[in-house]
Each structure stands twice: as structure tokens, then as C-alpha cells.
């Protein structure tokens, strides 16, 4: 058994694996940096999930073998990638027209904080340098569905799922789903609904490590990864 997942790497992998199950065949998905970028490793080749990379690609394939690396073909995380079958290449303007026009089914993104209404803070920390926003706000505003992939607490065990954002928000649009290594929440009618608890966690632990109010699903499940 996973013993409390003291290992951050295992926690991140678990989150990625759980989110894979949310990506239905045919879905056009944008994966953010950090945990979301791990998801590709766990997608089955026949999943028919199409990865959009905001730097100008639909149909991102996995990391190529070393002798096929071409740094003219990179992901938004700036890692070398390959072209999947039926992929297409386009400019940043066309890529964000795709994002902003509502043509991305699911955006999976990291966050610094999520509020109990599902609001997202994922680009800046108060008092620190605000030097990067990237495509986060474009995705928050316009993706059809937003899945947040975060560890349940920070390294110093501060909750990330909190009552009100204290960090700058990334938009007025709320997340639809929050997946941590301990739990899965759905955001419904401005409220968090706890739907799954990891087998090595407990309702007591979730309550302790979640500052936000949440309600518990009548159909509370154990989180299944594989």
C-alpha cells in the first residue's frame, strides 16, 4: 500500500493517473505545466484523446527517441515532442483562437489555490514577482471544462483548497473538477462536492487539510486509479 504518499513524485503521478480517467475518447485537451504535463505518460495510445499545445499544435505525441528530437517541435512546457496521427500545426493566433473560441473540451491545469467556489489562482503570488501569466487566463476563461491538478497541501502542509483566494485570481470562471492525491471534488452550484477519497486517506484527514467548506457526496467513493 501507499504509505501516506510521503513521496511527492508518487502523489503527482497518482493525480495524473486519476485525471486520465476523466479524458474521454475524442476529447481535445490542453495540459498545463507541472502535474498536468505528466498525464501524457499515462494516456493509452488508443485513447483518442487529442492534446492541444498552445504554442501551435493539435495532436501532440509523446517524447521522441533522442535521435529524433527536433527543437522546432516542442510542447508549451518547451519539451521535445512528436506529431500524433492527424496532428496539425498552426500559429499562436490560430491556437488561441481555438482556445478562446471555446474549442478546447478540457483544460487540465495546476493551481496555487482553489476557492470553495472553484475559483482558480494559478499565476501569481502576492508580494512576489508577477512576471508570468502565459496562456492560463485564456484557458480559464474559455475551456469548456477545467480540471485542477494539485497536491492537497503545500510543502509546509498549508491547505490549497481554501475558503477565499488570497492569491490573485486567474479569472471569474470556476473549475469543474479538483483532483488531489487525497481527494476528488466536483464544483457544483458554487459548492465543492467531495466525491472520492484516496484509499490511504480518510474523511477526517480531508477535513483537516481542506480549509474550504465542502459537502460530501451521497455516493462517496474510494478513488480508483487504474
Amino acid at each position, binding site marked *: 500500500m501507499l504509505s501516506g504518499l510521503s513521496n511527492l513524485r508518487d502523489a503527482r503521478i497518482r493525480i495524473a493517473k486519476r485525471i486520465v480517467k476523466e479524458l474521454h475518447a475524442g476529447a481535445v485537451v490542453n495540459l498545463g505545466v507541472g502535474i498536468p504535463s505528466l498525464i501524457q505518460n499515462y494516456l493509452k495510445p488508443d485513447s483518442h484523446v487529442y492534446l492541444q499545445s498552445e504554442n501551435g499544435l493539435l495532436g501532440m505525441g509523446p517524447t521522441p527517441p533522442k535521435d529524433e528530437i527536433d527543437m522546432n517541435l*516542442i510542447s508549451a512546457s518547451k519539451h521535445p515532442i512528436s506529431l500524433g496521427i492527424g496532428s496539425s500545426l498552426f500559429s499562436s493566433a490560430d491556437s488561441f483562437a481555438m482556445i478562446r473560441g471555446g474549442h478546447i473540451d478540457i483544460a487540465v491545469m495546476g493551481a496555487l489555490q482553489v476557492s470553495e467556489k472553484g475559483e482558480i489562482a494559478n499565476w501569481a503570488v502576492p508580494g512576489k514577482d508577477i512576471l508570468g501569466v502565459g496562456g492560463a487566463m*485564456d484557458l480559464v*476563461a474559455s475551456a469548456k471544462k477545467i480540471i485542477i491538478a494539485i497536491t492537497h497541501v503545500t510543502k509546509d502542509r498549508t491547505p490549497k483548497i481554501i475558503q477565499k483566494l488570497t492569491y490573485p485570481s486567474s479569472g471569474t470562471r470556476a473549475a469543474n473538477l479538483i483532483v488531489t492525491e487525497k481527494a476528488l471534488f466536483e464544483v457544483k452550484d458554487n459548492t465543492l462536492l467531495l466525491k472520492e477519497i484516496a484509499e490511504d486517506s480518510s474523511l477526517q484527514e480531508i477535513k483537516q487539510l481542506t480549509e474550504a467548506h465542502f459537502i460530501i457526496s451521497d455516493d462517496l467513493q474510494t478513488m480508483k486509479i487504474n
Partner: protein
Amino acid sequence: MTIGECKKRISAKDAVKMIQKGDSLLVGGFGICGTPFTLIDTITESNHARELTIISNNLGEAGKGLGKLLISKHIKKAIGSYFTTNRDAVKAWNNGELEIELIPQGSLAEAIRAGGAGIAGFYTKTGVGTEIAKGKEERDFEGETYIFVRGIRARLALIKADKADTMGNLVYARTARNFNPMMATAADIVIAEVDEIVEAGTLDPEQIITPHNYVDYVVLNDRYEKIGGEYVERTK
């Protein structure tokens, strides 16, 4: 070789002579993918082209691409979407040596397209309710709030394409396309750095991304070669 027949071809040095102190430059690339390395390196060796305002998604990487131009103290201000990953940019900003204006990546791409397409400005949902929206005009359309974004133009654009034909038509390589095609439309003077110049008529008309009338000058990348998939500076 047909390179001599490209009337738009100039040297990187002559290209950089057109840049004036205090100029605004659109510079293509995402990180260092699709970056006009030869032109940028040539600017670092110039003394006149300083106090530049650079409009580009990033400032390259630390010591690479626009990152070099930052170290050589040619940049006064950077307008883009993501500077966090270049530690030199963060340091320069902290030291008050670099001004930064952040624009969400999609708004940046669209604003440059608008600047090249005669669009004065447009309304987008991106950034509504955030610090990015501060001081920006808000307006509701069908119950949703949008913010107003102005088009962006610059005096010069330095872009990177894979190939030019001798007329100046451009094609790009994979995700090295990124911001380059829009930037080609949104400046008074457009200088395209390319890895190769081919005969006019050899590029498929369906596949040309930047028609020749957008390109004023063509500069051949003669400082970097692709080794193991990466652009590596040639040993002189």
C-alpha cells in the same frame, strides 16, 4: 545556388543598422523555438540599437536568444506573457533594470494579429476579473463581461522562418511558427531570418504561410546550425 537572386536579401549587420536607439521590436519565438538567433546576436554586437522595447512572448532563455540581448543591456522594456523562466529577466526586473508589461498569451497573439490587420482593438473574456483587467475598459455582451485590448504594432519585426523563396514568401518549421506569422504583418519594417533560401515557385502556394509582400528583408541564418535537433552556434 539561387540565393543571389533574392533581392530582399541583406546581411544581418545591414539589417541591424536599421534599428534605432529606443526602437520597438516585435521578435518572434516561443522560448527559443522560432527565434531569429543570428539577428539577435548581431544586435548584441551593436552599440546604437539600445534601450529597445521588445515585444515577444518570452525573453528567450537565460543566455539564449533574447536572453543574450538582455545580458548585453540592449533591452529597456519587455512586453510579453511569460518571463518567469528566464532567471536573468527576473533579476533585471528586481534590480530595476528592466520594465515588464504582462499580457496573457492569447491576448498578445490576437493583439499582434489585430495590429497587422487594421483592427484598432477588440473585446475578449481573457483576464476579466483579474489584475490584468485593472485600468482596462470593460463591456458586457449578452450577459458576459469582456475587456478591451488594443492592437499592437512596432516599427520593426524580427522574425524567424524555416525557408524563404527568392521573392520572400515564407514557410515555417512545425511549432517554430508560433508568433512569427502575425509579427510579419504588424511592423513597418519586417526582417525575416531563414535557414534556407529557395527558388521562387518551388514552395507550394497552398503551403506558404507568409506571403512575400509582408517581408521587406531576408537575412540568412549563418551563425547557427542544427545539430541533434538543436540550434548550435557555429564555431567561427
